[in-house]
């Protein structure tokens, strides 16, 4: 399972910049996110148990991170709408996924503005923490502030409940993919069954 997940993390994301680079970025994110768990486990358990549980956790983390990285919000919205979900619900899923790059872009702009006013992130832990706090506050505030504005703004783009959205370019659903989906679902059920028995 983990091997599969790791291989997937290295494949380029759908549609976005091709190549190994984004795969490595995702891998790095996975390792960084999973690292605290490993430390925690090592403190509590012996090596064998640590490895067993750690691998499972890393696989879970890898799946999520890969999903967010590889799945473009637009395709998700299109696919959901084509499958019959309401536009607002599809958009909710999509917006959650796209929140990360939007926030990332905004964080970058805020950091640049702060650096241009003398904020230095170098130096000891204290300086870094201060810089982090100086970033976190406006990021969260402006994101929250924007939620209000966004709700209003999206109304202006026709997201009205009750109207069936027209899919523009629904991702194709080939028989192979459908078969793969069922196979994966069955594999999960089988694994669950094996666990429980």
């Amino acid at each position, binding site marked *: 399972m983990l091997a599969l997940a790791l291989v997937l993390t290295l494949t380029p994301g759908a549609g976005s910049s091709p190549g190994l680079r984004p795969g490595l970025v995702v891998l790095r994110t996975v390792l960084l996110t999973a690292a605290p768990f490993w430390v925690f486990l090592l403190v509590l358990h012996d090596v064998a148990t640590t490895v067993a549980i750690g691998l499972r956790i890393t696989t879970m983390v890898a799946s999520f991170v890969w999903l967010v990285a590889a799945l*473009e919000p*637009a395709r998700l919205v299109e696919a959901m709408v084509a499958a019959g979900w309401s536009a607002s619900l599809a958009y909710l899923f999509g917006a959650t996924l796209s929140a990360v790059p939007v926030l990332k872009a905004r964080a970058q702009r805020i950091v640049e503005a702060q650096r241009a006013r003398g904020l230095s992130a170098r130096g000891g832990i204290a300086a870094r923490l201060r810089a982090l706090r100086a970033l976190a506050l406006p990021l969260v505030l402006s994101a929250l502030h924007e939620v209000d504005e966004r709700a*209003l703004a999206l109304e202006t*783009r*026709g997201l009205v409940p009750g109207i069936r959205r*027209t899919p*523009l*370019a629904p991702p194709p659903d080939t028989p192979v993919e459908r078969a793969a989906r069922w196979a994966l679902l069955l594999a999960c059920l089988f694994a669950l069954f094996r666990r429980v028995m």
Partner: protein
Amino acid sequence: MRSLTLEGVSFWYPATDSPALRNVSLHVARGEIVALVGALGAGASTLLLVAADLAPRVTGGRLTGSAARHDRSGIVLPTPWTQASGMAFSVWDEVAFGPANLGWPTHEIARQVDRALEQLELAPLASRDPVTLSGGELQRVIIAAILAMDPGLVLLDEPAAELDSDGARTLWRLIRLLAKEGKAVLLATSTLDALPEVADRVVWLEDGAIRAVGPPDLLADVAACDAGLGTSVATVWRTSGLPGPYPLTVAHALRRWR
């Protein structure tokens, strides 16, 4: 034929005592271009939100009086980047977002999107990722996106704010074209100098109430000049101490001067 009729509208934002709009009565006919002018906070943006049926429905707050719309409205906010869907691969998809949400058939969507892109001279940018656009380009994309929804009542809040002079000129020309096609246009702007060539009527808002309504010549009135709402040419004439009536534009001034 009226597109928008506001009668005695007063509006309070949630948890505010003083109204953002006081007893405003205004109508906009199809084919007409009405411009809202006033100092910041005078109520132009709020008026547009009421016209778009977003206030109080989405913003919350309280409204008294009546607001009647006879056409579907489309509004371009002064913060166009908030109106970006955030999930379009390309400018084309971004502009198509609205029409798709309205459930139109694919060929109709394509027709409206292509037309809107052409009107805003965005065809060269059609396959660009919206994230890479500059402020001015994004503003034009959002305007196209709203026009692609084919609103009968077009509401624009500072549509030229981020545009350079080529872009602004294209915009004003487009607005005149929209009116000729029979759309009703209500816009708020602080670029007063463009209005004599664009607006049929000018509405001067002060503290949420209508202080004056009239043809663009209003912007050459003594009162307007003194309030900082005169055109540049009229203001210069006023400051010079020369007698009124003040010329509205350079062309008027030249005629007067001869």
